C-alpha cells in the first residue's frame, strides 16, 4: 500500500487532488476527497431496515438531522462481509453527482493521499481488477432506488 496514513506536509494540495483511502476486506476503496462530506461512525442498531429494496441498500440512518441511505461497500464489490456492530460510514456530499448524500459502509478508514502518490492505473475508466479501486457512480446500479416488491 503506497499512500496509507500520509501525514500532512507543508506542501498544501488542492481538494481535487486529494483522495480518501478506505479498506473493504482485501480491497482498498478510494474516494475523491471532493465527494466526501465526512466520515462518521454509527451503531448497527441505529440502522432502519428497508425490506422492500434491494439487499445492496442496507437501510437508512438518521445523522445530524439528515437521512442517509447506507450501501455496504463489500456487497458493492461482491465480497462476503459480515456487518459489524459499529460501522464506519463515508458520507458523500452534493459533489458526488448521482450518488450524492449516500453513505458507504467500509471496514475502516485508512487515511488520505494525493494523486501523485497513487498508482496511475487507478484513474483509468475501467480499473476494476486490482486490489485498489476508485469509487465511481456507475458501480451503484441505477434501479437501486426502486422498490423490489
Amino acid at each position, binding site marked *: 500500500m503506497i499512500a496509507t*496514513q500520509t501525514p500532512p506536509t507543508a506542501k*498544501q494540495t*488542492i*481538494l481535487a487532488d486529494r483522495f*480518501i483511502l478506505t479498506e473493504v476486506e482485501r480491497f482498498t476503496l478510494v474516494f475523491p476527497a471532493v465527494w*466526501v462530506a465526512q466520515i462518521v461512525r454509527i451503531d448497527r442498531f441505529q440502522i432502519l431496515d428497508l425490506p422492500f429494496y434491494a439487499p445492496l441498500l442496507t437501510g437508512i440512518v438518521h445523522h445530524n438531522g439528515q437521512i442517509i441511505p447506507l450501501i455496504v461497500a463489500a456487497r458493492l464489490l461482491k465480497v462476503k462481509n459480515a456487518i459489524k456492530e459499529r460501522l464506519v460510514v463515508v458520507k458523500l456530499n452534493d459533489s458526488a453527482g448521482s450518488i450524492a448524500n449516500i453513505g458507504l459502509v467500509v471496514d475502516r478508514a485508512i487515511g488520505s493521499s494525493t494523486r501523485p502518490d497513487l498508482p496511475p492505473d487507478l484513474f483509468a475508466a475501467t480499473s476494476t481488477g486490482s486490489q485498489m479501486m476508485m469509487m465511481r457512480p456507475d458501480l451503484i446500479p441505477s434501479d437501486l432506488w426502486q422498490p423490489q416488491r
Partner: protein
Amino acid sequence: MSINQSAIPAHKEQNNRSRNPLQQVKDLVRTNLVSTITVTVAGSLLLTGVSAWNIWSIYNSFQSTVTKQFELQKTSDQLIYQDEFLTMSAQMLVSTGNLDWETRYNQMVPKADASLKKFLAGITAEQRAAASKTDGAAAKLFELQTKSFKLVEQGKQKEASQTLMGAEYAAQKKIFGDGNGAVLAQVDRSIQAELGNYQQQLLISIVFAGVTLPILLGSWTFVLAAVRDYIRDRLAAQIEIEQSQQNLLNLNQALEVESQNHREQEKIVREERDTLQQDISELLDVVSNIEAGDFTVSANVNNRATGLIGDVLNRLVEELGLLLSQVSIEAQQVAANSHLQDKIAATVARSSGEQTESVNQVLALTQTVRQSANDAATQLAATDRSLGSLQTAVTDGELKIGSLDRGIDVLQQGSDRIVQQMKALGEFVGLSDRFVDDQTEIATQTQILALNASLVAARAAEQRDPRQFEAVAREFESIAGQVSQLAQQTNEGLASLEQRNSQIHRVVSDVDGEVQRLGSLVNSFTLGVKQTREVFATVQSVTGQVVKAGEVVSQTSQTIINSADSTARSIAAIATLSAQIDAQSQTARSISTQMNELSAGLISNIQVFKLPAQKSIVSLPMIAVATPELLSMPDLEPILAEPSHQFN
C-alpha cells in the same frame, strides 16, 4: 223455537228459592224465553224510536234557529255597512262639493231600505217596536242630509258642511246609533235564550239515551245468556242420548257373542269328556301290564291331561326299568371285582415280604449316609478356619487402600487450586483483551476525526479568499497530521500489546492443557484405586458369602444326619405297617368271597323282571368300582404292576 216447561227438572224449581236474585232472574228468563225476547225487542224499538224522534226534532229546531241567526247577523252587518256608506257619501259630498257622491248616495238608499225591511221582518214584534223608536232620528238625519245636498247644489258648500257637522246632526246620529245597538242586543239575547233551550233539550235527550242504553244492554245480556245456556243444555242432552244409544248397541253385540261362545264351549266339553274316558281306559290297561311285571309297555302321550299322566307314567316305567338294569349290571361287576380283589390281596401279601427285605437294605444305607455327613462336617470346620484368616488379610488391604485414597484427595485438591489460579489468569488476560479493543476503538475514532479535520481544512483552503483561510487551513492540516500520527502510534503500540496478549493466551492455554492432562491423570488414577477398592470389596463379600455357605453346608450335614435317623425310624415303622397290611389282606380275601356269593344271589333275583332292551348304561370301570382305595395310593400301583420290584 219453543220452550217446553215440563222439560225443566223439578228439583231445579226447588233450588230456585235458595238461589240469589240474579240467578232467579236468569231462571225466569230461561223459563219465559220467547216472551222475554219479545218484550225486550219491543222495548228496545220503543226506546230507540223515542230517542231518535227527540233528537231529530231538536236538530231541526236548532238548525232553523242557527239559520235565522245567521240571516239576522248578515242583514245587521249590511245595515251597518249601508248606514256608514250613506253617512260617508254625504260628508264627502259636502266636503268636496263633487256631485258624484250624491249619485252614489242615491244608489245606496233603496238597498238600505230593503235591508231594513228584511231585518224588521226577521225579528219579533216587541223588537220591531223597540226599533221603531229610531225612526224619528232616521227621518231627521235623512232630512238634514237632503238639505245639505241642496245647499251644495246651490253652491253653498260651507253651509252644507255646517249642517252635517253640526250638533243637531251629531245628536240625531247618536240617537239612531244607540237605538239600533239596543235592538241588535235584544235580538242577540233572544237568540242566546233559544240556543240555551235547545242545549237543555239536547242534554235531556242524552240523559234519556244514557239511562235507556244500560237497561237495553242488561236486558239483551240476560236474553243472550239464557239463549246460550239453553243451546248448551240441549247439545249436552243430545250427546248423552247418542252415547246411551251407542252403549245399548254395544251391549247387544256383546250378548250375542257371549251366547255363541257358550254354545261352542258346551260342544268342546262334550268332546273332551269322551276323549278323557277313552284315555283313562288305556291308562288302566298299561297299569295292569306293569303290575304283571312287564316294563316294556308304554301309555299314549298327547296334549291332554291324560297325555301328561301317560307321559309321567312312561317316564316312571322307563326309569324303573333302567334302575333294575343298572342293579343287574352292578351286581355282575361286584362279582367280577370280588375275584379281582382276591387276586390283589394275594399280591399285597407277597409284596409285603419283599418290602421287609427292602427296608432292611434302606436301614444299612442310612447308616452309611450318617457316617459320610460326619466326615463332611469335619472338613467344613477346617475350611471355615481358612476363610477366617483370608477375611483378616482382606481387611488389612482395605485399610491400606484407604490411606492411599486420602493421599489422592490431597493431590486432587492441589490440582483444583491450580485450575482456579489459571482461571484467574485467564480473566486477567480477558480484561487485557477488552482494554486492547477499547484502545483500538479510540484509535479508529481518532483516525476518522483526523480525516474529517483534514477534509475540513482542505475545503477551508479552497475558499475564494485564501488569505483569510490559509492560516486556519494550515493549522487544521497540522492538527490532522498530528492526530493521524498519534493514531498510528497508538495502533502500533496496541498491535504489540495484542501480540503479547496472544503470547500470554498461548502460554495460559498450554498451562491449562497441562493442568487438565494432570487432572485427567489424577482422575484415571483415582478411578483405578476405586476399581481396586471395589475388587477388594467384592473379594470380601465373596469370602463372607463362602463363610456363610460353609456354615450352611455344616448345618445341612447335621440336617442330613438327623434326616437319616428319622428315615431309619420311619423304615422300622413301615416294616410294622407291612405286617399289619399282610393281616388285613387276609381279612379282605374272606370279605370278597362273601361279596361274591351275595352278588350271585342278587343277579338270580333280578332275572325274574322283563326289562326293556339295554341302552348305553353308564358304568364305572371295574378296577375303580372294585378297589377305589387302591387307586388312590399311587405308590402301590407300580408295585402291583411289577411285584418283583426291589430297593437297590
